[in-house]
């Protein structure tokens, strides 16, 4: 998980705005060539963390190290941490090629080389022939690719992405996810991707950092986070699972929806009686929603064939059970 020679290190990094502590002493290492997603609800400190990495915010405490150098006081323009912005922040008074060339120009790269490198990236992003266009003459997907080209043309060792897909249509999001994962593999550079969307983070990232209330709640591979959420906060944020009381007092279990079995008869072993509420088609299967004892919402993923044989109706009683070992015991909150 942690390499011996990480690219980025956060050591006890905090950020205060007056009395409000946006980030509370986080420790995090990011490896070279790793795709890390920082995920959490709005206001959890994920964007502040990313902005500190880019030098747009100064940590109030702790140190940020990039490539072995302490970066706390290095201004943004002296860092090599290009970012793709939520608003894209393309320069409206420059055309496509001038936007892509901007970073090279600021670094004093001479004109002919600038042109060559910009054109190469425009071609790579499928924007050949658009170089003279104005930004407002492009579609959302095209702008996205201009923003990527603009950030990557300087060949950085790390790319920061701040909810870059949140403004796109659903079908474009899936396509851009493919573009981003492929790019990251091809370039072999580090991607730090901030998002509130589980599906984006789980689809692309090697490692997911879940943040809540300015703290890191859990770090792990997507499957780990999904199967074994450390705390109730993580389990609830990730969703598609059931939070159940454990055997010891105060203990809680989590069982993923796809590991829950629905049966009409009471099975052997531990099972929960629950009333059917509704179903939702979810691509990979059907999520059935139940109301358990004391009103808890329970979820189970079933196939279409299973749904047909169960013939659920709202209010109908079922038994939910899971194979031994499918549950995960969470830390007490």
């Amino acid at each position: 998980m942690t390499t011996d020679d990480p690219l980025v290190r956060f050591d006890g990094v905090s950020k205060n705005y007056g009395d409000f502590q946006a980030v509370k002493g986080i420790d995090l290492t990011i490896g070279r060539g790793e795709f890390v997603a920082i995920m959490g609800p709005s206001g959890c400190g994920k964007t502040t963390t990313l902005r500190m990495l880019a030098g747009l915010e100064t940590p109030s405490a702790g140190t940020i190290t990039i490539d072995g150098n302490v970066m706390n006081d290095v201004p943004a323009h002296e860092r090599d941490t290009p970012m793709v912005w939520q608003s894209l922040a393309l320069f409206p008074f420059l055309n496509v090629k001038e936007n892509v060339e901007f970073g090279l120009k600021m670094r004093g790269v001479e004109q002919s080389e600038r042109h060559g490198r910009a054109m190469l990236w425009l071609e790579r992003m499928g924007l050949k022939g658009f170089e003279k266009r104005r930004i407002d003459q492009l579609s959302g997907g095209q702008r996205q690719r201009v923003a990527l080209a603009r950030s990557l043309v300087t060949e950085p060792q790390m790319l920061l992405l701040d909810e870059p897909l949140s403004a796109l249509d659903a079908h474009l999001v899936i396509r851009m996810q493919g573009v981003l994962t492929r790019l990251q593999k091809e370039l072999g550079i580090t991607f730090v991707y901030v998002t509130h969307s589980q599906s984006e983070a789980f689809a692309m990232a090697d490692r997911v950092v879940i943040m809540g209330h300015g703290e890191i709640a859990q770090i792990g591979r997507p499957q780990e986070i999904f199967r074994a959420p450390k705390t109730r906060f993580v389990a609830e944020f990730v969703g598609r699972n059931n939070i159940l009381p454990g055997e010891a007092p105060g203990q809680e279990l989590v069982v993923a929806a796809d590991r829950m079995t629905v049966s009409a008869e009471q099975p052997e072993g531990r099972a929960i009686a629950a009333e059917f509420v509704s179903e939702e088609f979810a691509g990979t299967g059907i999520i059935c929603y139940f109301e358990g004892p004391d009103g808890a919402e329970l979820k189970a993923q079933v196939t279409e064939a299973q749904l047909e044989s169960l013939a659920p109706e709202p209010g109908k009683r079922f038994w939910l059970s899971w194979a031994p070992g499918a549950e995960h015991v969470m830390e007490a909150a």
Partner: protein
Amino acid sequence: MMRGTLFSRFYLVALFTFVFAPIVTSMVFSFNSDRFPTVPLGSFTTHWYQTAFARPEVWTAFGNSLVVAACAAALSTALGFATAYTDFRYGFRFKPAYLALALLPPTIPLVIMGLAMLAWLGRLGLSGTLTGIVIAHTVMGAPFAMAICRLRLSQMDPALEAAAWNLGASPWRTMRSVVVPFCLPALISAFCLTAAVSFDEFIVAWFVSGLNKTVPVMILEILQGNVDPQINAIGTVVFLTSMTLVVVAQLLILKKSAT
């Protein structure tokens, strides 16, 4: 519905007539051969223009006005932009007071402003100089320039500057290659508008101009002597100059709102 439309059309026409009738009258009489502004009109002539612009003091006044307008507009725009940018970029404790002070000059009665400027510039030894008029007009124009620049900056994505820093541009470089280009339509518009304000301004200029008269001051002095159609001719030129500046400013404001 129909009556309402009709009424508002009539109202619009009446309003513009009311506003522009005196100016149109002055323009018409500037081409009228009669000595006094009476109807029926005499014949068409450019005589008044020829006599007016044959006078060297008219050329001097126009020269003074243009120099003052250009300098005051440049200074007002620079000052207004800096003030607006400070407001956009930084949060500080006395910001409301800062903004109120920056926007205060247009609320001061012009006579008071003229007197105050005369006293102050006199103390600095600048009264009666073109520099003095430039200073006075800069004070009067800067709030307008600031308002225009603020409007434009409010349309700027706050991430735009950060994006430039992020791509390796120092704060000064960002100002030069991102903020100023983004605000360029507003800057030109502010320049034109403050130039028009200065070019037309008479009261304060009258107080501080001394022997270096601007066009409006000269018009008043000619008027004090006698009623002469040359005034109409000069007035028409002044009006057209200001109108051109204002129209250019407006076009740029409209254009920038569209993007």
